[in-house]
Structures are given as structure tokens and as C-alpha cells.
């Protein structure tokens, strides 16, 4: 659920700010549509899954076998509301899982963004690095330049902290 929602939210954000290096598709409009679908599918699958007993891992057994369990209206609400001790996820664990999901969504977006912008960018602004450069460049190119830029200006960048 979290991965799909992170991916969707990320796509809405980068579509609005024009950071093409993290787009899933070449069209901003399709990106936003896809993002909305992902944001809706994530929690829907999470909360609906216990109702039908639908498990993506049971595809090999045939689709009919997946819909084997049904819950009453009273049981639906309790399906995902369980204590940490009874199988729920504690706050700290949630924080870790969320961070991993967010990181994974950025990785997936960076890979697709490489195909959107082209693996190598021909238009390189000498002064841009970081997300500003991702507007027209792939993540690998951006990372390469950003690391060099920050390392080169290390003393200037971090003198305020010292």
C-alpha cells in the first residue's frame, strides 16, 4: 500500500514541478492520471484484501481459489485494526517500512525517468545540480554531476556548519 501511494504522490509532485527525470511516462497528464490510480489502488487493496481473501501469491492456483474467504460487515473493520502484539505494525516499524517504500518509489521513478529524458542529456547547464538538473536530465547524470559539484565545493558548502 505504502509503495503504491508513495509512487503516486511522487508522480503528482514531480509532474507539477516539472522534474522529468522522475516521471513514469513522457506525458505530464498521463503521469497525473497514473498517480491518481496508484493512490486509490494502494489503500483499496490493503483494506479490501482481507474481505475476499484475495492474495496475489495465489495466482498460480487459479483465480477462483483466491476468492475463498468472505467477511461480515462487522468483521471488515476489524480485519486491519489489530494490536501490535497481535500482528499489527508498531510505529517504529511503520517508519522503517515507509522510508523503504519511499526510497523504492524514488528508485523506480529514477529508472523510468531515465527513459523519459534519455539516458544521456545533451542540454547540460553548468550551474545546475540536484533536483533542478533532474528537470531535463536522467538521475545517473544528475548524481554524477551533483556528487562532483558538492565534493568540489565542500569547504564552501559546509563552512556555515563549522
Amino acid at each position: 500500500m505504502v509503495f503504491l501511494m508513495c509512487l503516486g504522490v511522487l508522480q503528482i509532485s514531480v509532474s507539477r514541478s516539472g522534474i522529468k527525470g522522475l516521471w513514469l511516462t513522457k506525458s505530464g497528464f498521463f503521469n497525473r492520471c497514473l498517480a491518481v490510480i496508484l493512490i486509490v489502488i494502494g489503500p483499496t487493496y490493503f483494506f479490501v484484501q482481507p474481505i475476499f481473501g484475495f492474495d496475489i501469491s495465489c495466482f498460480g492456483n487459479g483465480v477462483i481459489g483466491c476468492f475463498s474467504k468472505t467477511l461480515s460487515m462487522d468483521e471488515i473493520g476489524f480485519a486491519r485494526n489489530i494490536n501490535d502484539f497481535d500482528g499489527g505494525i508498531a510505529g517504529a516499524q511503520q517508519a522503517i517500512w515507509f522510508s523503504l517504500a519511499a526510497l523504492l518509489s524514488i528508485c523506480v521513478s529514477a529508472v523510468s525517468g531515465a527513459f523519459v529524458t534519455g539516458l544521456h542529456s545533451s542540454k547540460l547547464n553548468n550551474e545546475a545540480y540536484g533536483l533542478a538538473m533532474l528537470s531535463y536530465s536522467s538521475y545517473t547524470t544528475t548524481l554524477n554531476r551533483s556528487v562532483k559539484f558538492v565534493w568540489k565545493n565542500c569547504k564552501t558548502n559546509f563552512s556555515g556548519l563549522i
Partner: protein
Amino acid sequence: MFSKFIELDYEVTLFINGLSGNFPILDLLVQITASDYLMPVSFCLVLFFLWFSGNVISQRNNNQKVVLSGILSIGLGNLLVLCANLVWNRPRPFLVLENSINLSFYRPTDPSFPINPVVIGISLSYIIYMQDKSLGITVFLLSLLMGFARIFVGVSFFSDLLGALLFGIISGLISIWIRKNCENVFSCFIKIAKGFGLAG
């Protein structure tokens, strides 16, 4: 005076909780709203959205500093909740008013006061409001919604929600004060993230 306040608190709690059990679909929606997964994840997603949003570099930088303040406020909010729990280990409504409460949620074992996710939500909304008013108000309303949902399902008192509002605002204020006085630290962190192509 205090006992009158507690009586009023019980009455309001029972009134809100008394609305449950009449419409199964409403109960289901409120249970999902009160769950530990939907709203806390939504709050974090707002921060995730803010990090990458902004058409101009300066706007994005400000948004990223807001996100860092937000993360700080989450830690501070949890710390304030921990301190509150140490001072007052308040039992849950289903333990105090067991014959009157209509419980439609699992039985949490931690203290009732204050509502932890609402503290986080309120502190985030306060910080986000300084940068983006509409988004801040949205997060604030979602936090309130979750608070009322928790009362509706019978796991929190109304005064727990009021306490969460107070603690959330305090946490937000402290985070903003820290950000103003440690601007260099925030800028350096963003520069490091820029080095990895993830900020700026």
C-alpha cells in the same frame, strides 16, 4: 471544578461514541479513518509530496526545510506524548466506562491521553501552514477527523483530543524555533541531499 470537567468530558465522549452502531457503512469508514495505517501514512505522504514540489528552486528549498522541520516535529511530538504518558497514565474509555462505551476497535494498551497520531498531525499542520496555507488546513482537518474517529470507535476521550491539539501546537512551535536558530544545519542537510540529486 476538575470533577465537573471530567464529567463533561465523559458526556461529550459518550455522545460522540453513541453515534456508532447505527449505520454499518459509517462505522466501517470511521474504523478505517481511526486505524493506525491510513492517516499517519497520509501525513507522511504530505511531507513526501512537499519535498519534491515547487516550480522554482527557492520555493523547493523552502518546502524542503519545512519537511525537515516536520520530521523534527514528529520526533518532538512523540517525546511530548511520552512525557505526558509518564505523568498521567490515563486508562482508555473502554476500561473506565466499560458498560457505556460502544467499542468497535481493538483494545490499545498504551495510555489514552493524548491521542498520539493527532499530536503528530497537528504539529505537522502548524508547520506546513506557515509555508502552504491550504495544505496546512487540509492536514489540520484530517488530524481532527482522526481524533473524532478515535472517540467514535471508543478508544479515546474528548479531552484526549484537546490535549493532542495543545501538544501538537507546542511541538510545532518548538520545531519552528529550532529551525530559525539552526538554519545552517537544515541548509547543510539539504546540500548533502542535493549531492545525491534528491534536493534543490
